């Protein structure tokens, strides 16, 4: 392939990848944009002021989203760290079956499941509550949390743990002082993953949270459906920032040896 061919293909790919994103950026900066203009008619920050006004919905939704995401991470880690350790280090009957069991939420189209979770929660008076939404996000994130944490613990050098034991440390002590700190980067990565999944989660919150719990993705959706493209674009950018930051930092936390142990 000549260099022209390469350039064309890469250029096309760049257009495909960045075009939609550039579109988002344009709408976020635009104040007026209508046919037949190809670019916004006027630019400005009027809508930024509207989105971030103190009594506004956007800030409230952002707080709701962050609070739910943090709670989800806490719940996921509380469940996944023991489970991950057990899967990595302890002799577990039906180990493969258990690993696969955590895959179940990823194996079934989840819209119908969420519909029914909402119905069950409705009877339990959990529908429309933060707790309900946190529970839904936790189950959704557990598969990543458990699999990545298990891989992180598996990557810890067994010799170090053995050394701690030889020096007389109990199982719990060795776990807290050796395994956990060494697995921390991998656990950190799974925490960030769960955080992002929760922040961006739409379908579950659509059924379980609406209309009382409005997260940022739901706010964005409402703004988009109502034709408020500027507000939708700005909220979308706010949602994007954590994801892109994660992408740039993932190299640091998720080392190759951890990645290779996923699913082992």
């Amino acid at each position, binding site marked *: 392939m000549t260099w022209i061919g390469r350039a064309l293909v890469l250029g096309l790919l760049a257009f495909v990848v960045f075009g939609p994103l550039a579109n988002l950026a344009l709408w976020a900066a635009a104040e007026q944009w209508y046919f037949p203009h190809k670019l916004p008619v006027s630019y400005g920050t009027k809508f930024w002021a509207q989105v971030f006004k103190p009594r506004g919905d956007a800030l409230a939704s952002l707080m709701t989203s962050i609070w739910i995401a943090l709670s989800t991470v806490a719940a996921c880690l509380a469940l996944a760290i023991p489970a991950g350790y057990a899967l990595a280090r302890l002799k577990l009957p039906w180990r493969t079956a258990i690993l696969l069991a955590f895959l*179940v939420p990823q194996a079934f189209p989840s819209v119908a499941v969420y519909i029914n979770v909402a119905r069950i929660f409705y009877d339990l008076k959990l529908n429309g509550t933060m707790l309900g939404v946190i529970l839904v996000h*936790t189950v959704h994130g557990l598969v990543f949390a458990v699999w990545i944490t298990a891989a992180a613990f598996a990557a810890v050098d067994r010799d170090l743990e053995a050394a701690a034991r030889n020096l007389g440390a109990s199982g719990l002590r060795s776990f807290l002082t050796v395994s956990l700190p060494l697995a921390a980067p991998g656990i950190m990565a799974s925490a960030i993953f769960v955080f992002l999944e929760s922040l961006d989660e*739409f379908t579950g919150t659509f059924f379980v949270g609406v209309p009382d719990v409005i997260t940022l993705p739901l706010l964005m959706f409402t703004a988009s459906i109502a034709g408020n493209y500027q507000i939708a674009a700005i909220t979308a950018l706010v949602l*994007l920032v954590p994801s892109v930051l994660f992408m740039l930092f993932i190299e640091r936390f998720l080392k190759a040896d951890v990645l290779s142990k996923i699913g082992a």
Partner: protein
Amino acid sequence: MQDRGRLGIALVAPALAAVLVLFVYPLGYSLATAFEAKGGGFTFGNFVKAFEFYSVDIGFTLVIIGLSTLLIALAAIAIGGYLVLGENPRAVALLRWLYRWPLFIPFVVAAQCMRSFLAKNGLMNNSFVALGILEIDQTTGFLDWRGIVITFVWKQTPFVALLVAGAMAALDRSTIEAARNLGAARLRVLVEILVPQVMPTLVVGLILSFVTMMSVLSVPLMISGESPTMMTVDMAFRINNYGDYGTANALGFISYLLTAGCAWVYLRRQVRQS
């Protein structure tokens, strides 16, 4: 040792319980309710109604997802192939940096991007008009089932490409070198040597993508106005407007069958080939 086994179970139990209670139980509830009549009792009526109302959408869901999966597979193989066989190091590095971006964009945001990008007078068409490829009244909006396909392919290709590229990179280069030395074109090497060896990874990636696409609600809701659209939109409509759990769960049951069916087809090909 038995003690450690019990300890292991105890440590895993809470997480497992969470999945069982919050996913498997509602899943079973969904399957059961699909067959439940309005006043109780067993019936196929919900399925009859689902087909009467939504047979077009059920068909289109298959078309949308099938087409998306095919395009994702082709794109992922192409990207993975170039990353392994590409000879220009700058182009390879650029590709490696470029293709990953959509992976970190959430589906809702991708849907919002595409909603204005693919519109009749959206950025894509305006760019084509600016470049002289199209006339202004020739532009068409893609905000229908084709927009759904485009969004899915855009979002899922990096994921599958990541898996495939990883698998290809882990392969023994000696077969590749041998084939190249014998004068085989790179495309031939890709198709006849690389792809068969990474098939298992490719299939896993495609099945995961299939399930993901069947689970996404935001994309069809935001991109496609009405029929034909995906079943997930109809499920949401039945619930939100009518509280009609019977039909919605019947549609859910059908979506499980579709997913299981396709997974079975893929996996059978795998078993057959190995």
